[in-house]
Each structure stands twice: as C-alpha cells, then as structure tokens.
C-alpha cells in the first residue's frame, strides 16, 4: 500500500477529527508533500460542505405539535388493542367473580353445616365454663390483664412528660406505652408530670396556652396509635362489660385502663374509641345471632336439607 492509499483511506476520518494524534501527524506529513492528496482533501471537504449546506424543505412551524397530535391519536387508537385483551380478561374475571360470589353462600353453608355442631359443642362448654367462673374468675382475668399492661409501660411511665413529647413524634410504640402508662400511673404522679411539662414547654418556647398543654398534646397524639393497638383489648373489655356492673371488686386500675378518666383533652380520641367499642359490640351481637341461628338450624334434621339446598343453589348458580 502506497503512502497515498494509506492517507486517502483515512482522509474522511482526518477531516472529521476521528484520527489519533499520531495518525494525524503522519497524514499531515504526507499531505505537505503530496499535491494530489491535498487536492482530494480539498474536494472532499468541499463536497461535504455542499451536502451539509443543502437546505431542508420549509417545515410548518407547528409541525411538531401536529406530529404530537397524530401520535396521541394513533396511540389512543392502539391503546384499546392491548387493553382489548385486558378487557376480555376483565369480562371473564367479572363472570368468574359473579360465579365466585354465587359460590360463596353455598360454600359457607356447607362449611357451617360441617362446623356448627363442633362450634355448638364448644359453645355449650364455654357457656357453662363462663357461668361457673363469673364473677370471681372474670375479676381475676381482668386483674391479670391489668398487670400485664402495667408491666409493659413502666419504663415510659418513669420518663418525664417532656421526653414523652419527643417520643410522641418518634416511634409509635413508645407513644403507645406513654398513653397506656398515663392513666395507669398513680394519680398523684400525673399533676407532677403535667407541671413539669409546663416548665419545660415554656423553657422550650412552645405556645404556653394552658399549663398542661404539651403533656395533653402528647396524650392526645399518643391515643391515636394506642387506639388502634387497643382495639383488640377494647373488644375484650367490651365483652367483659356486661359482667362489669356485677363486679364491684374489679380493681380501679382496670377501670383506669379504659382510657376515659383523668385526662379530658383526649375526648375526641376517646369518643372515637367509644364508637369503636359500640361497633365491636354490635358485631359481636350479630355474630352471636348468626351462630345461634345456625345452631338452631343445625339441631333438627336441617343438616341434610340445607346441604341439599346448598347443592341445588350451587347447581343453579353455576
């Protein structure tokens, strides 16, 4: 390969600045002494320039907007296509969903027919046990629960209220502990904590509206998570409540556990709790009614009959 061939092969890359410095030096060295290659370089540069300068047609100034509009329309037309499968799937799913829903009742009936005798038996046992236990046993249970709760919040109860206000912003668990601890703590401690809260809150430059404001804040905030976690407990307490009037001996601490007392400002949260308790009670009542209905139904010869009904319904719905 001659020096000219080697240079001409790389002349475009040289013009485009795509050669290494070493190559560049060698090409320029050759061009300096070769008129033919120099001419070619000029012609290549000129023709490239002509190509690059060739103007484009005059495009409409809104052509990009038009394109975006066309793309939108086209993609909107296409979108129903993949969703067409999805839609078909949805229709199928809706059909399936209907079938499933139709299946739920017969299936539930079957399950109950099988399960109710067992439930009924245990129900009888439980009822008799409850009769035997109340009221002393319930009181004992309540006491156990109260101690269990009192043990958990202890570290937080020892902590001063202002720290609790920090804790309320931080993990809900601690806040919960504080909320539980506050009513459970000895009544004498509460004013002390509130007073301390006042001192610290003014020192911290917080709005001093009402002496115990920060501590109340803490409690109000703390009630929220506490409310959720206490829901189960509240349910248990609600169940105990019918027996409560009879239980004069229930320790004061247990009563304090239902977070109504001493601290007033949390009333919003408390009324929410009340509503929840009421809802839980209503649900309990419904469940009990259902169970007793099924128990009655299951007692007679209803077993065979209801399963027949179920399978007939199953057949028609299917």
């Amino acid at each position, binding site marked *: 390969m001659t020096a000219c061939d080697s240079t*001409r*092969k*790389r*002349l*475009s*890359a040289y013009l*485009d600045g*795509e050669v290494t410095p070493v190559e560049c030096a060698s090409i320029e060295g050759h061009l300096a002494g070769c008129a033919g290659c120099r001419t*070619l370089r000029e*012609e*290549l540069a*000129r*023709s*490239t320039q*002509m*190509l*690059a300068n*060739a*103007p*484009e*047609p*005059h*495009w409409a100034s809104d*052509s*990009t907007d038009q*394109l*975006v509009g*066309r*793309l*939108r329309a*086209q*993609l909107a037309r*296409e979108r129903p296509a993949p969703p067409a499968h999805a839609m078909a799937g949805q229709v199928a799913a809706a059909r399936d969903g209907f079938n499933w829903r139709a299946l739920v009742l017969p299936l539930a009936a079957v399950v109950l027919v099988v399960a109710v005798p067992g439930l009924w038996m245990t129900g009888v046992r439980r009822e008799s046990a409850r009769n035997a236990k109340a009221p002393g046993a319930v009181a004992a249970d309540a006491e156990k629960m109260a101690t269990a709760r009192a043990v958990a919040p202890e570290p937080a109860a020892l902590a001063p209220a202002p720290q609790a206000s920090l804790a309320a912003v931080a993990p809900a668990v601690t806040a919960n502990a504080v909320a539980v601890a506050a009513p459970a703590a000895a009544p004498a401690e509460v004013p002390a904590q509130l007073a301390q809260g006042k001192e610290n809150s003014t020192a911290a430059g917080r709005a001093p509206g009402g002496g115990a404001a920060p501590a109340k804040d803490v409690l109000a905030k703390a009630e929220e998570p506490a409310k959720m976690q206490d829901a189960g407990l509240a349910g248990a307490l609600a169940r105990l409540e019918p027996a409560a009037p009879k239980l004069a001996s229930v320790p004061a601490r247990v009563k304090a556990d239902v977070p109504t007392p001493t601290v007033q400002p949390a009333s919003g949260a408390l009324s929410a709790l009340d509503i929840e308790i009421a809802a839980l009670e209503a649900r309990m009542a419904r469940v009990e009614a259902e169970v007793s209905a099924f128990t009655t139904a299951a007692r007679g010869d209803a077993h065979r009959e209801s399963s027949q009904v179920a399978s007939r319904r199953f057949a028609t719905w299917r």
Partner: protein
Amino acid sequence: MAERSDREQALRDAARTDEELADRLLAGDQEAFEVLVRRHHGRVRSLCYRMTGTRADAEDLSQETFLRVFRHRETYQSGRRFRVWLDRICMNVCLTHQERIKRTGPIVRLGDRTGELPAGALVGAAERQDPEARAQMNEMLKSVAKVTQDLPAQYRAALVLRIFGGLSYQEIADVLGISMGTVMSRINRARIRVRNQLKDL
C-alpha cells in the same frame, strides 16, 4: 393555577436528561414520551429527509420512528444513551423503507418527486433575491440531493448520521451495529463517491 403547575411541570421536564425521560417512558409515561418527541422531532425528521430525499417521506418516517419508540420502549436499556437508541430506530425505519421501495418501486406523490425541493426551500440564501442565481442554486441542490440518494443505503446511513446527525464514529458504529473500521471506510467511500459526482458542479 393549573396553568402555572403545567408550566412548572414543563420546565421540570425540559430540565430532565433524555435518559431520565426515557426511564419514565420505559414505565409507559406518555408525557415523558411527548417531551422526547418535541425534543428530537427536528433532528429525526432531518435524518429521515436526508435518507429519503422527500418531504412527505420524511414526515411519514419520522412519525413511524416515534411510534416505534413508544411501541418498543421496552427495548430501551436503562442507562444507555437514548439518542443512540432513537437513531437506530430511525435508521431501521429509513432502511426498511428503502428496501420496500427497491422491491415495489417508489411511491410517487403529487408534487413530491424524489429529490425535488419545494419552491422557497432556500433558507437564508443570498440567491433568493436573484432569480437566475436561485435557479442555478436550486439545480445544484437537486443534484446534491440526488447524489445522496444514489449512494448505497448503508453508505448513506453512515454519512447522514455523520453530517446531519453530528454523531461520532463510535456512535455511528453503535447505531448501525458495525465496527469503527467499517464506519470509517463507509464514510470515506461515500464521500469519495459524492465528490466524484459533484466534481463538475
């Protein structure tokens, strides 16, 4: 208020890189897609025009390019340069179009014959004032356009990407899926062909 937040959104989108927008496009975000279309339409259309030589084809093929961008968005690999991916789609669209034309013959549209430049195509040319010079210039431009069209498609693609796309040789190699050496030789051969045809002008 809504107008203002639209405007803010537009400004935020304008500040995003192609690759950020392409990541959103991957997730099917049509707004990001439209920002990318607006950003690259001019360039893609220009590439299509240089590849096909006609205005109507350029408009059709640039639209086809963006449709493919959206339809095949999942083929974009996050972290890769969006422009290389876009140009590859664009070149595939153009080359497929050339293949089709080669098989079935060109689609002749009214007033849009291959290589013809519409009246008033000269932008910023001093010759615009002088009819004779303008005619001469127009002739020359037609020849230039024809020269480009006469190149083998693969040579034209490399040359168009270099001259009108402003891509480096490495980027051209990535777009066309060929080696740097091949890019270098194709561009060089294309240039020499063009020079041979334009020598007399």
